[in-house]
């Protein structure tokens, strides 16, 4: 098992995402003024600069935007973990958001940009925290 990476999820700005994931909820920052869902969290809304945004439940599904299969451990803690897949998912309800995640239950050769995916919650390859990871959504293939 890879060792625990870092446990610095105590930042007020970032922690709510981890808290929601622990409850198996997928949340994104959403602007209270213009409704824009954005990523990563930052002090002001990147669309309208409003300071009034909140973490909002977001439908945990999207499509594969890009992906890579990692063969080389760029950190020695990942030596036993390679090869593994990393995907970038664009959530259906948040066009333009690129969620870095992983995908399960599919061979690299079957992976395609545009495939529909749905989130489940598990500890990914380099964390002990429950976070969104994705599976192919058979209902929408």
């Amino acid at each position, binding site marked *: 098992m890879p060792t625990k990476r870092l446990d610095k999820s105590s930042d007020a700005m970032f922690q709510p995402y981890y808290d929601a994931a622990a409850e198996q909820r997928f949340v994104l920052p959403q602007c209270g003024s213009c409704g824009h869902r954005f990523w990563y969290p930052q002090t002001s809304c990147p669309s309208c600069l409003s300071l009034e945004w909140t973490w909002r439940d977001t439908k945990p599904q999207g499509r594969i935007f890009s992906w*890579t299969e990692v063969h*080389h451990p760029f950190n020695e803690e990942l030596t036993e973990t390679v090869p593994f897949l990393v995907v970038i998912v664009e959530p259906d309800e948040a066009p333009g958001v690129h969620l870095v995640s992983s995908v399960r239950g599919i061979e690299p050769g079957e992976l395609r940009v545009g495939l529909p995916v749905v989130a489940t919650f598990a500890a990914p390859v*380099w964390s002990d925290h429950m976070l969104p990871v994705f599976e192919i959504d058979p209902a929408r293939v």
Partner: protein
Amino acid sequence: MAQTVNTSKQAVISGTGESRFSRRSDAPLARLQLDAINAALTDAGLEPGDIDGVFTDGSVMPVSFPIDVAQTNAGLHGVRRVGQFATGGTGTALAVMEAAKAIRQGDLHAALIYFGVDWGSSQPPYSFHDRYRAKVLYEQPYGYYGQALYFATIARRYAHEYGYTMDQLARGLGQIAVDHRANALLNSNAQQSRSLDLDTYLAEGMLADPLRRYDCCLQSDGAVALILTSEEFNSHKDRPAVVVTGAGYAADSITDESFFSQNPLFTSLPSAHRSAALALSNAGVTVEQLDFVQAYDCFTPSPLMQLEALGVCAPGAGIEYVTAGTAIGSDLPLNTHGGSLAQCYLLGINHISEAVRQLRGEAGAGQVKNASKGAVMMAPGRDHVTLILERS
């Protein structure tokens, strides 16, 4: 239109110095950097006391070789202006741009710009991005770690958006690696000394699919120094003056932390498009007039995107363009020294010293015939600098 350069009001890169470049140097970084500074002073024909401005990167050098250390060890007792640019890969190009402005305005006579790293012998720069909370908390848990992964996902998306097969993509990126290597073999200060062909490139296993070993830049110990002066302080009237005739900086409204995963366009560099247009415009030079391009090449997709930004080909046509070849001898050679892929990884400052070498006609076996105008582009990210350098 090409215009006669009025050097009396221009900033000239009148000195360059390079340490020996290697994977692991026996000498500490401080010694490599001092070697480069002293070589640049000699090349410029100046004494340490002639330097009145010192500029460097502000992301790496403030810890490894800060300005006070440079000033003290090189004997730069006449310094009256300093600056650091904490903009990552654009830092030293921005330093040249700002030093050139100060010289054109008559505020400075001779400005030193320096940069060096010992990342070849100390540690690879992967942990450099641990400073970004979103990366640590939202990317690294999934193993999205190491800058190669950013460019792997960019390359795959690029192939998808523009309809290239993965084989076409591999042959395009591979040709970039092959051409950089061929250029490096003509440079006497390059780390790579063995030739590379496309079959060898393709036979390498993936590091982060679709990127292979030779899509990634070297790890290096080395240092470079540049000296900018007014034409009046350029002591070498006997050789061509290399003038900074154009410079453009542009930045997108997205943080460094967010850029590589959240860049809305993902497969292109908006700031590079704007900085290139600015630099060409204020130099009064067209892309067709350029004799070479030195573009920041941390990974092969990076110069690909910057060539598109410069306008040598349309967005999405880059793979076709590079597949046709960009080595010395092609219409517009790219990274004539071998770049970060095959000469040395110094975050691009060696691209500037190489541009000077080319424009002076001092590049030896790697000389681009009749080189009189060139572009330097740094770097793939939220912000970007393009410099246009011309021989007068």
